[in-house]
């Protein structure tokens, strides 16, 4: 059984032309697109109806931010993995989406082959780190390291090292060779970086909810 057979993609973008182009590129590579949506509201409803494993998500949507859509996927089964595909690359938008749970980020200028392999990796829950995303995440952890809070997430030295090499455009095979690690270990490190960020976000959201009495509703 090839992994492709299980890949079910939902394309969320407010430009129909873009949705069509993405659907075509993925279809050419044998990946099934189960639905299209043009807004946060549509994305939530379509995801519920079509049960995608991967959501290809634009960030600027007419009725909200892509990060809001990610939150609405949390109670689905399976919870789809989110790959952000954004034109602006505005760093705060991308960070917000990654904190909210996105597994990766590509700019819309990415070549179709890069997109296809990123969708496959996302389907398997592997992070898709471009150098620019790795730089943002590295910066976010630097920022968090100054927080006084006890739950602040910290990267291990090894994770920092891996992330710095990803930022400089090395792939996991190169990194494994340079650090004398197995390919699998390098992937575990990048995975754990994202997991720490997602967990921290969840902790922050929970604390916010407790502080504001939202858990009683």
């Amino acid at each position, binding site marked *: 059984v090839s992994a492709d057979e299980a890949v079910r993609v939902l394309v969320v973008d407010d430009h129909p032309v873009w949705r069509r182009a993405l659907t075509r590129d993925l279809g050419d590579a044998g990946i099934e697109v189960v639905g299209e949506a043009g807004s946060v509201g549509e994305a939530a409803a379509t995801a519920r109806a079509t049960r995608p494993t991967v959501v290809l998500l634009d960030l600027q949507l007419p009725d909200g931010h892509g990060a809001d859509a990610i939150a609405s996927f949390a109670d689905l089964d399976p919870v789809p993995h989110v790959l952000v595909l954004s034109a602006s690359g505005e760093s705060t938008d991308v960070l917000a989406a990654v904190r909210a749970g996105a597994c990766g980020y590509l700019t819309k200028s990415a070549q179709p082959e890069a997109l296809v392999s990123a969708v496959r990796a996302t389907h398997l829950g592997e992070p898709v780190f471009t150098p620019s995303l790795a730089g943002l995440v590295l910066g976010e952890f630097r920022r968090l390291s100054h927080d006084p809070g006890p739950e602040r997430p910290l990267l291990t030295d090894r994770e920092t090292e891996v992330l710095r090499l990803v930022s400089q*455009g090395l792939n996991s095979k190169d990194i494994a060779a340079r650090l004398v690690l197995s390919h699998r270990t390098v992937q575990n490190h990048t995975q754990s970086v994202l997991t720490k960020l997602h967990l921290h976000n969840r902790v922050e959201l929970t604390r916010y909810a407790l502080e504001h009495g939202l858990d009683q509703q």
Partner: protein
Amino acid sequence: VNSTHLDRAEALQLALHRALVLFHVLTLVAAAVVVLRRDPAHPAGAWAAYAAMGGWTLVLARTPARVMATHPRVWVAAATLLTVVLALATLPVLGTAESHAGAITLPGTWGAGCVLLACTLTGRVIPVAVASLVACADIVVRGRLATTTATNTMILVLTALVVSTLIHAATDATKRLAELSAEQAAEAASRAERERLARDVHDGVLQTLAYLTREAPRLSPVEVQELASAQSEQLRLLLVSDNAIGTTELDVSSLVREQVAQRATRLSPPPQLALPAEPVRLPSEAATALARAVGACLDNVVAHAPTAESFVLVDEFFSNGNRTVVVNVRDTGPGIASGRLAQAAREGRLGVSGSIEGRLASVGGSATVRSAPGEGTEVELRVSG
């Protein structure tokens, strides 16, 4: 009004004041010599008159022009009164007969001093009026209107007119000159700003537009979009730059973006930037040196590996309260054989050692190069801040 204007106006006022004092001193000596050689009927009266004139001359010399300018009419009135009184005193001091016979008064040409004072301190009407008053006193002393007296009167009034006109012209010219230089300074500043914008727009936006014009048919729409969006970002940065003139700290990321944008048309594929979302601030000198060193690294990529992939990472480390900003520039080009850089430096080609290491050393930073043939080149630039 700016300081240049004040400086120039003050300089003119000072020069006029000096000339006025000089006139008073010279004419005082001349008048005293002429009168005292004629054996006046009351020498003591003559000496007293010259003492008064000397005193007044001293007062004029010691009083700054701007102080007199605060009450111009009072000073002119005092000077005129003193001059008229001293002129009329010629009658008792020299004796009526001698006064009527001679063509002189006690103040003599010193009497024109109050007219000049009026010229420097007031408009054109008052000097003429003062000149007329002094001339009348002379006529009274002579007892009649002789030809010479009439000539003297005319000279005095005309002098008042001409000198006051000249002084006004000079003052106006000074003011205009000051306004002109203020305008010129403002114009030069706006021209410099325009040139800076033009340079930045040219380095980035125009270069990219030119490139698109030529290459667009061969580029994918996505590449066109990427180039265009990079430049719109660059224009936005230019217009709302955090790094405005006069700030003491600069964001290294913004400066690195500018360096990359300046070389956008010469590096294909464009360098991939890995930057934190928050600004990475350094003192402006260190930030500029670091960004220029990054630019020099990219120039090396342009020169030796223009089609290689390149990556720029801006990061910062904290250890024991010390902060270090680290920028990594990596390319996937042919790489450099070991010893090649040292050899280049020995041969006087200073690409890496001069424009990169030298720049960083000047702000207490350092650079390390890691490269091998076929493995690309990695430069790590560090500055503490």
